[in-house]
């Protein structure tokens, strides 16, 4: 067995954002995504003994999460399927859209490939963020992904504005080179 060890104390810090991003691209609802991530962590705790150390912790958690997401859809679908009578009013194939404009292919419509790429993008970025020092990662997430004001972040973390910009600068440089390697 390879030396992958399991340490649940660090799970939240290390993986919650990664798992959440993975979930949010698949379920499109913050609340549900949070619940699913939480369930995943719980399930991980319960079956910790079964962790063989063949894969990294994160891969292992992701594989649990995948099952959880599938289960989630199964649940919602079966409930809906019972309660709802599906109506199909000429919405299929040729009859879709009376207007000529509606029949033309929409160039801005996202294709499956596009979506896939974007899903992977989120994971790639989180991968790179997780390689940053924790402080840089925190600041970068708050500033860029959550869009907080500079002032808010400074107050929350107790740093000065110029301090913040230095941290941001370092984070951006590191991230750019990391993405350069792994994405472009």
């Amino acid at each position, binding site marked *: 067995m390879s030396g992958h060890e399991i340490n649940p104390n660090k799970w939240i810090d290390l993986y919650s954002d990664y798992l959440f991003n993975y979930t949010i691209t698949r379920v499109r609802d913050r609340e549900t995504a949070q619940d699913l991530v939480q369930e995943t962590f719980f399930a991980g705790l319960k079956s910790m003994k079964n962790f063989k150390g063949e894969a990294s912790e994160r891969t292992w958690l992701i594989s649990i999460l995948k099952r959880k997401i599938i289960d989630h859809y199964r649940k919602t679908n079966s409930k809906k399927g019972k309660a709802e009578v599906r109506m199909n009013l000429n919405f299929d194939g040729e009859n879709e859209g009376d207007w000529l404009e509606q029949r033309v292919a929409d160039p801005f419509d996202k294709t499956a490939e596009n979506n896939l790429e974007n899903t992977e993008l989120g994971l790639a970025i*989180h991968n790179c963020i997780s390689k940053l020092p924790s402080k840089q990662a925190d600041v970068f997430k708050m500033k860029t992904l959550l869009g907080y004001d500079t002032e808010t972040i400074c107050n929350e973390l107790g740093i000065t504005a110029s301090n913040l910009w230095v941290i941001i600068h370092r984070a951006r440089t590191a991230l750019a*080179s990391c993405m350069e390697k792994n994405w472009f």
Partner: protein
Amino acid sequence: MSKDFKLFVSCDKAAHTCDKTQYKEASFWEKIKLNIHLIYCKACRKYSANNAKLTKLTDKPEVDCLKNCEKEKLETNFKKELESHQ
């Protein structure tokens, strides 16, 4: 603005302004100075291009993360569960 009426700024300053522009926080005058700097500084041009690329990627809605309060909630719940397991 009148204090440092300089057209040519150092690379440090330019990089700082470049970071600021990514969050739309740079002033007009700062942007002018940055662009003048970019004309003659190849390193900063490269940094600025990379920076813009990064912003473009992170601005996509597919890149998301947990808010701090959400994370705390997750953490407290998890701690409880962890204790009951040990």
